[in-house]
């Protein structure tokens, strides 16, 4: 876990209404690690993820992927960085779950048999095999979240970005996500997740950063961060039980 894979340097982001969501964030992400971004609502976590995924262009500063400046809509970046959005309704736009899972593979013009095989594998992994021919909007929130995750896992991106993966999810699904992420970490994949679930971050992450009002307040190992109750309180976070 020593090679730098993604970094941002003095990144500022301002929305069209004038809200400054990020204020000079500099951060380095290393290959094979799980980085958890924690912070209160409106801290800028989701915006930071979108900037790191190359979907929003920073107003000031830049993002680098393997030492080179990240270019928006570069096919290499798209294949290397996958993002699971906070709201699955934003992510699922195809008429059936199958089509949604197959969407990215069809861009690669893979043979239909191969697409079918990979769709079935991904669906099995997150437990949505029985939903493949349903329209996504007919699914429950939890099912949509699963499909959204599968739609990214299907092309096995080098960096997986997850925005609030555990919010409103059942303990069983949270356990499944942990297993999936740990499995991916074991083969050297990198993960960045934004969450308010300190317990989840504590159990899974190699490193935690805390963002408050668009500024990076603290960075360190989970064991160190958890020892700072005042900081967690300031970030509107709950200290997990038994820690």
């Amino acid at each position: 876990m020593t090679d730098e894979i993604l970094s941002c340097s003095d990144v500022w982001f301002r929305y069209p209404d004038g809200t400054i969501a990020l204020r000079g964030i500099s951060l380095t992400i290393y290959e094979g690690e799980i980085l958890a971004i924690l912070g209160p609502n409106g801290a800028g976590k989701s915006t930071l993820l979108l900037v790191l995924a190359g979907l929003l262009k920073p107003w000031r500063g830049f993002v680098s992927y393997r030492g080179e400046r990240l270019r928006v809509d570069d096919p290499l970046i798209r294949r290397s960085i996958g993002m699971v959005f906070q709201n699955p309704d934003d992510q699922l736009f195809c008429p059936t779950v199958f089509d949604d899972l197959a969407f990215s593979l069809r861009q690669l013009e893979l043979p239909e048999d191969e697409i079918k095989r990979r769709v079935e594998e991904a669906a099995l992994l997150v437990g949505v095999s029985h939903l493949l021919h349903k329209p996504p909007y007919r699914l429950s929130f939890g099912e949509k979240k699963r499909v959204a995750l599968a739609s990214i896992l299907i092309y096995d991106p080098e960096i997986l970005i997850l925005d609030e993966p555990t919010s409103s999810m059942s303990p069983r699904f949270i356990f499944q996500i942990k297993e999936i992420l740990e499995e991916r970490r074991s083969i050297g994949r990198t993960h960045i997740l934004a969450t308010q679930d300190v317990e989840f971050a504590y159990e899974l992450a190699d490193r935690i950063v805390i963002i408050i009002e668009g500024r990076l307040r603290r960075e360190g190992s989970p064991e160190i961060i958890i020892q700072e109750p005042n900081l967690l309180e300031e970030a509107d976070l709950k200290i997990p039980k038994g820690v």
Partner: protein
Amino acid sequence: MRRCRGGLLASYLEAVSEVLNGLLAGGAWRLYPFTSLTVLIVLVVSTAYTDPFPFTFISMIPIIVALILSAISHRLAYLLKTIATSSLFLTVISLPLIFYLPGRPLVRVELGFVSLTATVEGLSRASAFFLRCLNTISISLGWMSLVGVDPLIEGLRFIDPSGTIPLLLFLSTRYIPLSIRETVRILAARESRMMRRDRGVAWMILSTSIGDLLLRSLHRAERVGMAMRARALSGRLPSPTTHSALSLRDLIVLPLVALYIVIYSLRWLI
């Protein structure tokens, strides 16, 4: 989208979204995109330019063919819903023709100080217009339900090699159902906070929903656009379907379409 509280409008919008989504879900037959599009154009043009009158069994052929096509693709319910809704709209549109055209008087209608006379010629023209439109809608929808919408969009690449029009259509077909569902949610959210039910409040809900809908649709479009870009692995915005080649099915379809034209448009076999 769970069925929510709400009146006729919400139910109508939900049904539209359902039909669109059903059509987008892909057809029973996979044809070469160019064949799919060409056959659609031929069917629509030949039906739209054929006068269904004098009314015989032949006049109903497009609807019958459409019913068969949608039954093959298990989308009969969508076609029936669309026929029912289109009939309602077409009735409203064609109604003035009955009174507008001069001819033998059929019935006189007094509406306050306005006196309208329905004529036989007017009724005949209105019926012909109604049936011609309904036939065209049915046959196009029947064909779309058989082959799916995406191959038709893909077929446009033969006309527009730059891919701009297919891309715009592809995005529209994804955004329209999303916007409709957003509308239903907005209406449901407002209705759930209605303290009294009367027509005034219902109209207020509708009128104030429009601005909100526009803003939310834009926001949703932006988010969905980002999700599409995030998964557009080829680096360009997506192509709706995988590329398929000409097959035996394409060759089978052509004589069948020719037979349709011979029987319905040219009426040679009658």
